[in-house]
């Protein structure tokens, strides 16, 4: 037998074996009695330079003999795609960070586990702000699919010096805000960015909720296109269509553009959450004002709240270990540490919220006070599609006057129905 004849089949077999070995990288199964159970946890980082998540994982691994967590960080803009794909292929993590508006997509399909039995036996459950359990539930279902972890509520920033210059009072009603936006606009300055680009749906829904509109009624029926909502939406659209009070490019602007415009003094108001508070306080000092988002009648009302919680994948065969990790994350010391980190949001525990760190700063207190009345995106199956795909083109068409306030809301409501 020649060398070639002997050599080639061996090479081919090795090559195919190497390829198939590379493709067959399934999750290792739990090996009983051989060290800690290893679980995989997926997360996105709001600040990739911050080491808080790594530190928490190291702390957990050193203090737990039975479970070892491995973090896998995925950029937020690819996160949902990858979670969906991995769930579909059965290659997902054991536990994962999740946003509240993904639940309507994940939970009804059986992709994430019902955490209610675990929560019932969890000592710290009484410390969670009661109203926040709803952020992990589906409409009309008492089961909890997501454990609250980090929360945020939206409010309004305004430039104190700009308002003083024009003799304006901080707006209480949405009509006040429209008037202020019109007054601020001129000489290269504008009232407020409408953020029609990526992520703008949260700012818009905060305005809608504050104006008295709802996405669903008490029975769970979609009412996003009722008469009240159409009026509130018309006011929002009028910032561009009638008042021209938004800067150029605002109908496609994402948060980076909106923040740049506010920081550089191009706009006098901006809707956002405490994630930007420290930075803006540093930039503006006493010239920064923070107030609740103006409501329809000027009285206290709702705003949008957004929960980043933790879920356990139904496909995981290490659910108990995964629960140990995510419940540990939501206990007081860890919540305190995460909320105080550069990428921290509002804590979800009464014991932490009532601490000095969250009550002494009146500007931060605007967001904290809103926790109990804020409303989230309802956990409907269509919310992910509306927020990630349909909202941008629809609202941009409305800003350009191509479709009416009624039509745009009807199209959005149809996605949810």
């Amino acid at each position: 037998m020649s060398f070639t004849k002997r050599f080639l089949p061996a090479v081919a077999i090795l090559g195919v074996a190497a390829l198939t070995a590379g493709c067959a990288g399934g999750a290792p199964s739990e090996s009983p009695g051989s060290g800690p159970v290893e679980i995989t946890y997926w997360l996105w980082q709001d600040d990739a330079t911050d080491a808080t998540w790594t530190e928490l994982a190291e702390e957990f691994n050193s203090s737990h003999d039975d479970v070892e967590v491995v973090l896998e960080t995925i950029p937020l803009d690819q996160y949902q795609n990858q979670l969906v794909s991995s769930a579909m292929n059965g290659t997902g993590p054991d536990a994962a960070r999740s946003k509240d508006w993904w639940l309507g997509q994940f939970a009804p399909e059986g992709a994430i586990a019902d955490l209610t039995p675990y929560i019932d036996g969890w000592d710290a459950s009484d410390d969670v702000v009661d109203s926040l359990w709803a952020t992990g539930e589906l409409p009309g279902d008492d089961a909890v699919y997501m454990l609250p972890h980090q929360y945020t509520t939206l409010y309004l920033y305004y430039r104190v010096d700009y308002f003083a210059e024009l003799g304006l009072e901080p707006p209480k009603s949405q009509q006040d805000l429209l008037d202020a936006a019109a007054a601020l606009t001129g000489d290269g300055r504008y009232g407020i960015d409408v953020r029609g680009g990526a992520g703008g749906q949260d700012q818009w829904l905060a305005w809608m909720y504050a104006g008295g509109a709802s996405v669903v009624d008490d029975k769970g029926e979609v009412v996003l296109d009722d008469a009240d909502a159409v009026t509130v939406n018309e006011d929002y659209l009028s910032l561009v269509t009638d008042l021209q009070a938004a800067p150029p490019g605002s109908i496609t602007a994402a948060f980076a553009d909106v923040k740049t415009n506010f920081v550089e003094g191009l706009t006098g108001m901006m809707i956002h959450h405490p994630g930007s508070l420290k930075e803006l306080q540093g930039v503006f000092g006493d010239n920064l004002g923070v107030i609740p988002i103006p409501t329809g009648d000027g009285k206290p009302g709702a705003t949008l709240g957004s929960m980043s919680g933790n879920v356990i994948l139904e496909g995981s065969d290490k659910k108990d270990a995964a629960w140990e990790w995510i419940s540990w994350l939501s206990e007081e010391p860890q919540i305190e540490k995460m909320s105080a980190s550069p990428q921290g949001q509002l804590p979800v525990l009464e014991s932490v919220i009532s601490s000095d760190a969250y009550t002494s700063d009146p500007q931060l207190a605007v967001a904290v006070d809103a926790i109990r009345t804020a409303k989230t995106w309802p956990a409907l199956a269509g919310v992910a599609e509306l927020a990630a795909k349909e909202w941008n083109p629809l609202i941009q068409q409305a800003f350009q006057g191509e479709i009416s306030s009624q039509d745009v809301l009807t199209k959005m409501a149809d996605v949810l129905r």
Partner: protein
Amino acid sequence: MTSSTLTEAVVTGRPAPRRPVTRRRRPARRGSIAPLVLLAPAIVLVAVFAGYPLVRSIWFSLNDVSVFTGVLDFVGFENFASVIGTAEFYPTLGRTAVWTFGAVSLQLVGGLCLALMLNNRFPMRGVYRGLIMIPWATPSVLVALMWKWILDPNNGVLNQWLLGTGIIDAPIEFLSQNSTALPTLIMIDVWQGIPLFAIMILAALQSVSGELKESAQIDGCGPVSVFRHVVLPAILPTILITTLLRLIWTSNYVDLIFILTGGGPGTSSTTLALESYLTTYKASDFGSGAAYAVIQALFLAVFIALYVRLTRKDANR
């Protein structure tokens, strides 16, 4: 003399041309597995990384896909009927054609002009030839971010310059108006794609015989005639193959559009490839997303067939 050359000589009355004597390789013994073994890694790679996704996409397009359970419910051509039936389908198809043919035709013209310039002798020619590849070599994400900064209506250098020189009195919202979004994206893609055309055509230009050009000039041809009758026929195969490849790549190219406009404002810059991505991953509708992809693949199959035909001719030459 073989029988065929003998016949030829008889019919034409001229001595048959002498065919070059080539040593014939001994044909591989029937049943030898050596060729298959040598090809096996390539076949496995193509099957795993191209064949399987292709077949899976086609299968998905014929099914209603549950994204989390992976359960498939066969629906035949319903997904195709559904996507073709939407009011946005034909406008999206039209935009895809404008995007693809607009960008590639301008790249071809620009690349040809640039190649002709670079084919002349001038100081530091080698440096310039290297520098022009920078746009092509820059990652798409960086290109998108760079142009986003340049075109920003409030802080971008282009608008600042236009306002400063008095050419305009209000900033142009290049990426936020229906009328300008797609043309702006096309111009950015042209900027990025011209270097490839230029380098490919330059390589072809350098293989054009100088003697032929000189002969044509002696025969009275001007520069235009020399280009038309000598240079162009020589570089045409390269132009055609590069154009076909760019048509395929550009129609599939979503990074730039996704980062700069997300398909907006409204749907004014949404192409079939972007719609396929958004439908699949943002709306989690794998069946309809795959249907968009298959429709696009059917259109591209025409270009692929032309490409294969051209390259086969080239190989047989």
